[in-house]
C-alpha cells in the first residue's frame, strides 16, 4: 500500500469532521455514532460520517481500522450495536438503513463491491451484471414460465442495460465469458458493473484497486470519475493514496474504529493525527481487529481470497 | 482427484458385480422333465422392507407345498412358482401384480399378503380374471370392494376380534383391558374389531397405539399404571417380544394376550422364555408348529427351506397352495385362468390351519379361532375359543 503524502509534515488541519458544514438536503448518506463489537473486539467506536450527493468520499486508514466494518454496517451485512444510518434515495426521502436486510438496502440504492472479489464465478459476465439489473424487476414465476409479454420486455431491458454497463467498464469483449475466467483487474471492473446494474445512488467500492497494475489503476480512476459524473455518489475504501488523491473530493480517516480526520485530500494529508496513525501502525502491523474486514459469512473462514 | 483411476476401477468393479449378481441368480431350474404338465402359479408378497420376514414365512409355505406336490408321483402335474415382490406397500402392488398377470402361464396367485398392497393390486387381478388367494390380508373390507377374483384363507379381523373378546372377557374374566395396537393396517384393524366387542361385554377398555419401536420402557410404565387385567396387543411378534420384556422388567401383574400376528416361535425366541411365559395368543388358524396333525408339514417345511421353521402365515400360504393344487387336480386338463377362477370358489380342502371352503364373497367359511399359550418356552394350543368358552 502506498502512503505517499502521509509522511509530509504539514499544517495542523481540521481534526473534527466537517460534515456539519453541509446543508442537509444535499446529503446522500449520514452515519451517526456507529458502534460495532465482536465479542471483546471493538471494530467501530462511535463513527459518524456524512456524504454529499455526487461526492466521491474516500475512507482511508490502516489495516483493521474498521473500514470494511463500516461498509458492512452501511450495507446491512452487520448490524451495529449502536448508531443509525440515514440514506436519501431522493433528496426528500430520508430512510433509515440499520435493521434492513442487505438486499433491501441494495434495492433502496446502495450498491457495493467486495474487498476480495465476490462474483458469481460460474456465470458469464453478462449474467453477473444481469442479476444486478434485474433486482427491481417485478415479474414472477408465472410470467417467466408462460413467457408473458411484460416478462419478456423486462428480460430484454435487463440485457440491454447489462450490455451498456459492460461497455461502460470496458468489458464488452468478455460478455459471454465466465466470470472466473477473467483476469483479476477485469473481475474488479465486472464487480463494479454488477453493482451499477442495481441502479444505485450510492456506490461503495471496497479497495477497487487492490491487486491491479498501474495502467489498470489509471483506468479505474477514470471509471470512478465517470461514474460520479453520472450522478452516483461514490464511497471508496482505498489504500492507494495516489488514486485517492486523484479522485476523492473529500477523505475520512479511520483508526482503531474512530474517525480521526475528515477533510479534503490535501487537508487530511497534512493532518498530524493521520501521519501518526500511519507511522504508528507501521510498527505493530495493525492487528487490532482482524476478521473485521471480512463479512462473516459461513465461507468467510476459508475464502480468504478469490485468487 | 489424485486417485481417480483407482476409484474408477472400483466403480467398474461395482458395475461388473451388479451384472454378475444379476446373472448369478437367474438359474432356478424349471423341472418338468418327466413329461408331466407344468402348471405355473404366482406368489405376490412382501419380500423386502421391514416386514420381509412375514413374506418369507408365507413364501416358504408356498414352496413347501409345491415341493410336496412335485415330489408326489401320483400328481398329474408339476407346479412351478413365479415370485413377485410388492414390499408390502401399495405403490409396488400394481407393478408386482401386473408382472404375474403378464406372465400368461400363471393361472393363479397366492397373495397379496398385506391389506394395503391387496387394495392396490386387486383391481388389476379382477380385470385380468386372475385368481388371487391371500394367506394373510385380514382387513374386513377387502371382500366388499368388488374384487371378483379375490379369496382369502384367513378370517377377517372381525372374526378374530370377536372370538378374542369373548375369550378375554369370559375365560380370562378380565374386567379391565388395555388394548394396544401398532398403528399398522393389521393392528388397527384388529384392535378396531376387538374393542367394540369387549365394550359390549361391559369390559373397561383403555386404548393406546404405538408405532413399532424398540423402546417400550415408558409404555410399560403407562400400562402398569393403568393396571389392566389383560393387555391385548394387536401387532406383530417382534414388537410384542420387546413389549413383553419391558413389562417383565417392570413386574407387570396382568396377563398378556395378542393375535395371529404374534403367533410365531420367534416371539418366544426374541422375548426370552421368561418374559413370554403365559402369553395368550389367539389365531383364526391351527398352528402348524403345535398341531400334531401338522407334524409332517413342519418336517417338510424345514427340509425345503434349509432348516427354517414355519412362522406367522406359513400354514395359511401352504394351505392356499395345496387348495389350488386340489382345484387343478379336479380340473384335469382344462387348467386356465378362467377355469381356475371359476372353480376355486367351490373348493373344499382339508388344510392344516382349517378347512378351506369359501362363502360367495370370497371369505373363508366358518373359521374357528384357536387360543394358544406360551408354556415352558413353547407355544401350546389350548383349543378352539368356542369350546373353551363353553367348558
Amino acid at each position, binding site marked *: 500500500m502506498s502512503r505517499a503524502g502521509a509522511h509530509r509534515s504539514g499544517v495542523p488541519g481540521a481534526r473534527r469532521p466537517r460534515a456539519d458544514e453541509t446543508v442537509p438536503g444535499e446529503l446522500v448518506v449520514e452515519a451517526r455514532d456507529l458502534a460495532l463489537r465482536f465479542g471483546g473486539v471493538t471494530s467501530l467506536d462511535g463513527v459518524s460520517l456524512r456524504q454529499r450527493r455526487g461526492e466521491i468520499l474516500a475512507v482511508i486508514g490502516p489495516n483493521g481500522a474498521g473500514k470494511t466494518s463500516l461498509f458492512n454496517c452501511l450495507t446491512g*451485512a452487520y448490524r451495529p450495536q449502536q448508531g443509525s444510518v440515514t440514506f436519501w434515495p431522493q433528496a426528500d426521502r430520508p430512510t433509515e438503513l440499520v435493521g434492513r436486510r442487505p*438486499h433491501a438496502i*441494495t434495492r433502496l440504492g446502495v*450498491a457495493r463491491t*467486495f474487498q476480495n472479489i*465476490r*462474483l*458469481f464465478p*460460474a*456465470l458469464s459476465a453478462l449474467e453477473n451484471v*444481469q*442479476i444486478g439489473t434485474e*433486482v427491481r*424487476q417485478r415479474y414472477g414465476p408465472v410470467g*417467466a*414460465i408462460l413467457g408473458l409479454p411484460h416478462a419478456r420486455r423486462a*428480460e430484454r431491458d435487463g440485457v440491454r442495460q447489462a450490455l451498456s454497463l459492460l461497455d461502460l467498464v470496458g468489458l464488452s469483449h468478455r460478455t459471454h465469458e465466465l466470470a*472466473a475466467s477473467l483476469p483479476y483487474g477485469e473481475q474488479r471492473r465486472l464487480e463494479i458493473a454488477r*453493482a451499477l446494474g*442495481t441502479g444505485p445512488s450510492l456506490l461503495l467500492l471496497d479497495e477497487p484497486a487492490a491487486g491491479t497494475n498501474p495502467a489498470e489503476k489509471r483506468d479505474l480512476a477514470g471509471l470512478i470519475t465517470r461514474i460520479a459524473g453520472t450522478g452516483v455518489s461514490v464511497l471508496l475504501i482505498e489504500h492507494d493514496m495516489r488514486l485517492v488523491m486523484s479522485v476523492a473530493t473529500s477523505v475520512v480517516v479511520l483508526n482503531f474504529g474512530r474517525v480521526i480526520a475528515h477533510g479534503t485530500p490535501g487537508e487530511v494529508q497534512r493532518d498530524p493525527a493521520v501521519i501518526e496513525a500511519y507511522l504508528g501502525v507501521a510498527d505493530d502491523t495493525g492487528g487490532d481487529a482482524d476478521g473485521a474486514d471480512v*463479512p462473516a*459469512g*459461513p*465461507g468467510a473462514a476459508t475464502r480468504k481470497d*478469490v485468487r | *482427484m*489424485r*486417485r481417480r*483411476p483407482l*476409484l*474408477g*476401477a*472400483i466403480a467398474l468393479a*461395482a458395475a461388473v*458385480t451388479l451384472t*454378475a*449378481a*444379476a446373472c*448369478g*441368480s437367474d438359474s432356478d431350474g424349471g423341472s418338468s422333465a418327466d413329461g408331466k404338465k407344468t402348471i405355473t402359479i404366482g406368489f405376490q408378497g412382501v*419380500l*423386502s*422392507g421391514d416386514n420381509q420376514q412375514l413374506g418369507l414365512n408365507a413364501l416358504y409355505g408356498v414352496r413347501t407345498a409345491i415341493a410336496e406336490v412335485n415330489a408326489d408321483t401320483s400328481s398329474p402335474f408339476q407346479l412351478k412358482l413365479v415370485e413377485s*415382490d410388492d414390499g408390502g406397500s*401399495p*405403490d409396488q*402392488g*400394481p407393478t408386482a401384480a*401386473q408382472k404375474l*398377470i*403378464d406372465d400368461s402361464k400363471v393361472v393363479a396367485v397366492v397373495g397379496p399378503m398385506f391389506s*394395503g398392497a391387496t*387394495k*392396490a393390486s386387486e383391481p388389476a387381478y379382477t380385470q385380468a380374471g386372475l385368481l388371487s388367494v391371500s394367506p394373510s390380508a385380514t382387513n374386513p373390507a377387502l371382500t366388499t*370392494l368388488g374384487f371378483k377374483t379375490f379369496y382369502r384363507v384367513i378370517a377377517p379381523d372381525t372374526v378374530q376380534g370377536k372370538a378374542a373378546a369373548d375369550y378375554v372377557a369370559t375365560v380370562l374374566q378380565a374386567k379391565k383391558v388395555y388394548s394396544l395396537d401398532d*398403528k*399398522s*393396517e393389521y393392528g*388397527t384393524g384388529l384392535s378396531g374389531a376387538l374393542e367394540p366387542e369387549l365394550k359390549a361385554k361391559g369390559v373397561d377398555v383403555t386404548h393406546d397405539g404405538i*408405532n413399532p419401536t424398540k423402546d417400550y420402557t415408558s409404555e410399560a410404565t403407562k400400562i402398569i399404571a393403568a393396571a389392566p387385567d389383560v393387555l391385548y396387543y394387536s401387532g406383530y411378534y417382534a414388537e410384542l417380544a420387546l413389549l413383553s420384556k419391558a413389562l417383565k422388567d417392570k413386574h407387570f401383574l396382568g396377563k398378556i394376550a395378542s393375535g395371529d400376528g404374534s403367533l410365531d416361535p420367534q416371539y418366544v425366541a426374541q422375548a426370552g422364555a421368561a418374559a413370554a411365559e403365559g402369553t395368550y395368543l389367539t389365531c383364526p388358524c391351527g398352528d402348524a408348529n403345535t398341531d400334531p396333525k401338522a407334524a409332517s408339514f413342519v418336517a417338510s417345511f424345514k427340509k425345503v427351506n434349509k432348516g427354517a421353521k414355519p412362522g406367522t402365515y406359513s400354514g395359511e400360504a401352504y394351505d392356499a397352495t395345496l387348495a389350488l393344487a386340489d382345484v387343478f387336480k379336479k380340473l384335469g386338463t382344462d387348467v386356465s385362468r378362467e377355469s381356475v377362477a371359476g372353480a376355486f370358489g367351490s373348493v373344499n380342502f382339508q388344510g392344516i390351519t382349517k378347512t378351506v371352503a369359501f362363502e360367495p364373497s370370497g371369505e373363508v367359511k366358518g373359521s374357528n379361532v384357536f387360543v394358544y399359550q406360551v408354556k415352558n418356552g413353547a407355544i401350546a394350543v389350548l383349543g378352539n375359543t368356542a369350546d373353551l368358552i363353553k367348558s
Partner: protein
Amino acid sequence: MSAPPAGQPGPGGQPGPGGAATVPLRTSGNPPGSVDASGSAGSSGSAGGPARPGWHPAVLFTPARLRQLGVLLLVGVLAAIVTGPTGNSDKPLQAAKDSIADVRIVLYLGLAVALWVVLVLGAELRGALERVSAPVRAPIGAAYGRRGGPIVLNLVLLAIAIVAPLVVSTAAQQSMVNDIGIYALLALGLNVVVGYAGLLDLGYIAFFAIGAYTTAYFTSQTAMPWHAPFVLNPFFVFPIALVLAALAGVILGAPTLRLRGDYLAIVTLGFGEIIHLVANNADNITNGARGAFGVPHLSIDLLGIDYKWGIDPLPYYYLLVVIVVGVMIAFGRLERSRIGRSWAAIREDEIAAEATGVATLRMKLLAFAIGASVSGFAGVLFASKQFFNPQSFSLQASFFVVAVVIFGGMGSRLGVVVGAVVLQGLAFYLRDKVPPADRYIYFGAVIVIMMIFRPQGLVPSRRRRREIQLAEEGIGAADSLGVAPTGGQQ
C-alpha cells in the same frame, strides 16, 4: 485424467500415438492424476516427453500400486459378500464365510486383478476409448451444446419416451407410471429445491402426501372419514393441491430457511416424518394405516372429449409424459429467467447475491414452494391412479427422490428424468435378478460411487458442472449449505 506415467507397455513402448492422444486430454480435464499412485516414476514421463521408461516390474510394483491392488481385492471380497448367500443371526458370520469360500470369489478376485492390470495400462486404454467414443459423443455433445440444437435431441428422446412403453410388458408399463413417471415428476420438483436453489429437502415426500390426501378429501365421500361436502373431478383438484402444497412449503420454509443448510435438511426430515406419522395415526381424519380407497380415476368430459383413465397404465403414462414435458419446458424457462439467475447467484455466493439485491430468503422460499407444488401435483396423479396408504409417504421415498436428483444431475432437467429412468429401471431390472431386499445394497453403493466419481450426476447441467469444478478449486460454491467440510484442506 492423465496417464499414470509409469507403464507404457504398449507396442514396443513407443511414445507415439499413445502419448499424443493423452496429452491433449490432460489439458481438458483435471490436474494430473495418480500422483499418489506412482509419484516416483511420475516426474520423468508426465510431460508427455519422448523419453519414457519402458515397462519394468519395479515400476509396476511400487507400494502405491500394491496398495491399489489391495484395495481392489478388498472390493472384490466385498462384492462376493454382497452377492453371496443371505445369512442369519444365529451364525452371524456364516454367510460372509460362505461367500468367501465359494468358488465365485475367484471370479471376483480375478476381476479385481484384471481391473488393476487395466488400471496400470489405463492411460493407453483410456486414450483409445476416448478416440473410439469421440465420434459418437461429439455429435451428441455438439448437438446438445448448440443453442436450438437440443431441440433435435430432445425430440428424439421424446419419440423414444412415446414408443418405449409399446415394446415392453404391461408390468413394465405399470412401473413406468408408478416408479419412473411419478418419480421423474417428483425429481423435477425437488430439482428446483436441490438443483436450482442449492438446498436440501429430505421431507419432500410430505408434499406428495398432502397432494394425495387433498385428492381423497375432494373426490370421494368414502375414501377418508374426513371429506368435502361435495365431490370434485380429480382434474379440478390439481390446482387446489398445487396451491395447498405450495402453501405448506411456505409455512414450513418461512421459519426454517434462515437456518444453516444442513439444519434445514434435518428440519425437513422431521417435517416429513411428522406428516407421515400424523397421516398414519389420525384414524378419524385420514383413515390411518388403512389408507384411502376409492379415489376415482381421472376422467374428462369436455368439449366432446369423453375419456376415463382406468386400471390400464398406458393412458396414465402418456398423461405423465405430457405433464413431465410440460414441467421441463416450464422450468427451463424459469431457469433462464431472472429467477433462475437469482438461484444460481445464491448457490454460488449467497453474500454477494444478497449484496446485489437478490432477496435470498424470498427466492429460497419460492424454490421451496415451487418444488412443493410439483410434489403436490404428483400426489394428485398418484392418488387418482391407485389406492394409497401412509406407507407410500415414508422417509425412504424422500431419500429416493433425492437420490434420483443427485444421480441424474442436480440442476439438469433432462438429467433428473434420466436419473429416474435409470435408477427405477435398475430397480425394476433387479427385482427379478437379486433377492428383492438386497436391492438397496446396490442402490447405496451406486450412490456413494456416484458421489465419489461423478458428483455432477449422469447428465449434468453445464452450469452446475462448472460450479462444482470451480468450487473444488476453491472458487465460489455449488450449493447453499455453507462451506465444504474439508477440515481446512485448502
